C-alpha cells in the first residue's frame, strides 16, 4: 500500500525486513537530494550569492522542521550530526567527560558503550550498568539503587533497544534520573521512525537522532541539546563556520549553538532531504504508522510461533517493529545465507550489542525488523523461506 512511495520496491525484488539497520527512502527524499545537487549546490552559512542563500535557507528550514517534529523549544536546540553514533560520541566527549560516573543499561548497542570506554571507563570504573531481567525488562530497582549511590552522574539510555526492539519507559527513566540530579541522553536511533517524540514531554536533556533509520538519507542525524546545557557543552570539532573571532594571540571565540557545534561543511544535501522524510512521516501520521506496525508485528509473532524449536528472548509486549529469535540447534548465520538466496533481507549476528548477547550466552540472533511499508505478504514469504531453510539445515 505504501511501497509505491519508495522507488526501492519498484526496482528490487528483495523482501526487505532489515529496517532496524536502515530504512528505504521515499521519492520526495530522493528528489530533494537531486534538487540540491542539480539546482543550487553551494555551501551554507558562508557565501552571499543567490544559490548559497537558497542552500542556507533550505538547510535552516530542516532545523525548524526537526524542531517542530520533536517539539524542541527552540531551533537552536537542534544540532546536525552524521547520525546517532556521532551524536553520542559528541556528547560523551564534549559533556559526558565532566562526570565521574556514567550510567547506561545492559541492553545498549555499541554506539552507547564504546564512546564511554574510550574515556577508559569500564564496569566498576566510572561505567555503571543497569541490569535487565531475564525477559530483557529494564530493572528500575537497580537503576534507582545506582542513582541513589551515584547522584550527579550522566545517564545515557536507548529509547528502543537495537537488538531486541524493547521499548523502555523513558519518561519514568528521565524523571528518576533528574530526581538524583543526573542529566540524561536518550538514544532515539530505533524510536523516531516508529512513534511520536516530544522532547519537552519526555523532558530529556539530550536526544540522539538518526536520519537514515527514519526514511531519510544516510550520513545525517541530529542531537537535541536542551538550551540550559548549551554553554556547558564544548564544541566537538572546531574550524570554519563554528567560529566568532580567531586571533592568533588572544585565541578563539565561538558562535552560539547550534553553529558552534557544526564546524566544517555539513552533509548539506542530507540535511535538506532529511526534512522531506519528516514531512512524509507527518503526512502518513504516527497513528497510522503505529497501527500498521502493530498489526504486522502481531501477525509476524503469531506466524513465527508456529515454527518448530523457535527461541524468543522477550515477549512481543513492549516491542517496536523488531523481533529477535533463534532456532534450537541451528546457527543464525546459516539461516541468513539461505534467506538471502531466497531474496529475504534480514540481519543476523550480535547487532552491535555484544554485551547483551554475552549475558544471554548466545553469539547472536536472527532479527526481523519491520517498517510500516512492509505488508503481510512479506511476512508470508519470510515464513515460507524460513520453513525451507530449516528443512535444509535440520538433520
Amino acid at each position: 500500500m505504501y511501497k509505491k512511495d519508495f522507488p526501492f520496491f519498484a526496482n528490487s525484488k528483495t523482501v526487505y525486513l532489515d529496517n532496524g539497520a536502515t530504512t528505504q527512502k521515499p521519492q520526495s527524499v530522493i528528489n530533494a537530494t537531486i534538487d540540491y545537487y542539480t539546482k543550487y549546490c553551494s555551501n551554507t552559512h558562508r557565501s552571499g550569492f543567490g544559490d548559497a542563500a537558497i542552500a542556507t535557507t533550505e538547510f535552516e528550514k530542516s532545523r525548524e522542521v526537526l524542531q517542530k517534529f520533536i517539539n524542541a523549544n527552540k531551533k537552536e536546540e537542534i544540532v546536525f550530526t552524521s547520525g546517532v553514533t556521532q551524536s553520542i560520541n559528541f556528547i560523551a566527549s564534549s559533556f559526558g567527560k565532566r562526570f565521574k560516573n556514567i550510567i547506561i543499561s545492559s541492553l545498549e548497542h555499541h554506539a552507547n558503550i564504546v564512546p564511554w570506554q574510550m574515556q577508559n571507563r569500564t564496569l566498576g570504573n566510572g561505567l555503571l550498568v543497569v541490569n535487565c531481567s531475564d525477559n530483557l525488562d529494564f530493572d528500575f530497582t537497580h537503576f534507582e539503587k545506582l542513582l541513589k549511590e551515584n547522584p550527579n552522574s550522566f545517564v545515557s539510555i536507548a529509547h528502543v533497544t537495537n537488538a531486541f526492539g524493547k521499548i523502555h519507559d523513558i519518561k519514568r527513566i528521565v524523571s528518576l534520573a533528574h530526581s538524583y540530579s543526573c542529566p540524561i541522553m536518550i538514544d532515539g536511533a530505533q524510536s523516531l521512525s516508529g512513534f511520536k517524540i516530544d522532547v519537552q514531554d519526555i523532558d530529556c536533556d539530550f536526544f540522539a537522532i538518526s536520519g537514515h533509520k527514519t526514511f531519510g538519507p544516510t550520513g545525517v542525524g541530529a542531537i537535541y541539546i536542551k538550551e540550559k546545557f548549551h554553554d556547558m557543552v564544548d564544541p566537538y570539532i572546531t574550524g570554519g563556520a563554528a567560529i566568532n573571532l580567531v586571533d592568533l594571540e588572544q585565541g578563539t571565540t565561538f558562535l552560539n549553538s547550534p553553529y558552534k557545534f557544526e564546524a566544517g561543511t555539513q552533509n548539506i544535501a542530507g540535511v535538506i532531504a532529511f526534512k522531506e522524510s519528516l514531512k512524509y512521516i507527518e503526512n502518513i501520521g504516527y497513528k497510522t504508522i503505529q497501527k500498521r506496525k502493530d498489526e504486522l508485528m502481531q501477525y509476524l509473532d503469531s506466524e513465527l510461533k508456529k515454527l518448530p524449536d523457535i527461541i524468543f528472548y522477550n515477549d512481543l509486549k513492549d516491542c517496536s517493529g523488531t523481533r529477535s529469535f533463534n532456532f534450537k540447534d541451528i546457527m543464525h548465520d546459516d539461516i541468513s545465507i539461505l534467506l538471502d538466496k531466497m531474496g529475504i533481507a534480514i540481519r543476523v549476528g550480535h547487532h552491535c550489542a555484544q554485551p547483551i548477547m554475552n549475558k544471554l550466552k548466545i553469539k547472536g540472533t536472527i532479527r526481523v525488523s519491520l517498517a510500516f511499508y512492509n505488508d503481510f505478504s512479506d511476512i508470508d514469504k519470510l515464513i515460507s523461506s524460513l520453513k525451507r531453510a530449516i528443512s535444509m539445515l535440520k538433520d
Partner: protein
Amino acid sequence: MSIKKRVENIKEDLEFFDEELAKYEYIIDLGKKLPPFDEANQIPENLVHGCTSQVWLIHEKKGDKLFFYGTSDAIIVKGLVYIILDIFSDSTIDELKEIDMDIIKELNLSEVITPNRQSGVIGMIKKIKEYALKS
C-alpha cells in the same frame, strides 16, 4: 592427486547444480559429512581469522605430507571447510608452500558466499599455508 586437479573436481561438482539452492543443499550435505572435531581443539589458537562464523583448523604432519582437520559452528561453513580440506589435506608440504591461488575465483564461490564470508575461506587457506611454511 594434485591440488589443481582436486580444485577442478570440486568445481565440476558445484557447477552440476543449476538451481542455486540445490548447490546449497549439496554444500550442507558436505558439512554434515565432515568428520567429528575434538572439542578440546576448539581453542582460540586454532580459530581462523576473518570468518563470520567460527572456524577451527588443525593440522597433522605425516612424512612429507600435511593432513588438515576442521569444523565450524555453522553448517554451510562446515560444508566449505569440507571442500577446503578435501582440496588441501593429504598434500605435500612443498606443494602447500607454493599455494598461490584465488580459491574464491577458481570455485566461483563469489556466487555462493558474500564478501564478508569470502574472507573466511581466504583465512582458511592462509592458515593452511602458514602451517606448511612452519612444517
